[in-house]
């Protein structure tokens, strides 16, 4: 596997984390946990954004593996 595809699969799992965190946030009845999940969700969203840009950059660097 190339670096690009490695990072891509990592982004995919981060997307799944984001989605699960969001469901947990809505399901949980405890306000403290809700707050923790929502701020975690926000941070994960930032990570996802960073990495998605990185994926584009890597695709430009290794166009043959696109």
């Amino acid at each position, binding site marked *: 596997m190339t*670096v690009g595809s*490695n*990072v891509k699969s*990592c982004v995919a*799992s*981060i997307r*799944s*984390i984001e989605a*699960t*965190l969001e469901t*947990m946030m809505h*399901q*949980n*009845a*405890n306000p*403290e*946990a809700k707050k*923790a*999940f929502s*701020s*975690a969700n926000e*941070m*994960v969203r*930032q*990570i996802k954004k*960073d*990495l998605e840009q*990185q994926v584009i*950059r890597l695709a430009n660097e290794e166009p043959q593996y696109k």
Partner: protein
Amino acid sequence: MPDWIRIVLNSAVLVVVLFFLTKWLGKKQLSQLNIFEYITGIVLGGIVAIHSSTLDYPLLYGLLAMFVWFIIPLGIEFLSLKSKKVRDFTQGKSTVMIQNGKIMEDNLKKERYTADDLLENLRSRNIFQVSDVEFAVLEPTGVINVLPKKASQPLTAKDLNIKLAPKKEPQTVIIDGKVMHEGLANMSLNLNWLETELEKQQASIENVFLGQVDSDGQLTLDLYDDKLTVPAPIEKQLLLATMKKAQADLELFALSTKNEMSKQLYEKNSKKMKKVIQLTETYLQ
């Protein structure tokens, strides 16, 4: 009137009267009765027994005696509710038996407690050595309550500085294959949600004996058919594991890249992921 009818009538009247008297005297459990309440109970019972089985005395005498035995304890109870002094006198005060790890011999003597009695009571509390006890007190009910020394107390999460997520009471949402709407409403969930969850666990509602939702919104089921296994909810463990894996991946990318800018980006996000894990870990266990 033949005697047997009078006996039946007397007994019926007395049963009803006794029922109401004991109800008004309160609902303390037998073991919590103090000596005075205990005697009152016995005397009331005795009066009823005599008057419901013999006809030597008129029923009115019995009712009168019962009334007196009812009104005086009630009055004393009322007074002891109002005044601490009366309470100490009628219900007794607790006596300190062990303080700062030292046995109070004078108090022991006052309560006519021998060392053997004390040891026996401590043993029933699973304490076999007096030096493990910080404080012990003999309650008016005759029970000894013990505070062990800090080192002999069981470990708690507080001692270990572990932060635990608060757990609310779970709600029962299915009993005998029927949906409990009240439980669902208490968790602010609806039927749609329940149907999807059941589908996820591949169970039909008729086959569910009991279903409960915990405060994290996880549904656990017990089926009639015990041969079928229901998957236990693993969503939380899975999420934690995925987050840990993503964090490790990011760290690995940071180590393997030679591009300085990418390295920084991976490191920054790996640290962020670590923070996310720390933030949510307590709620995912």
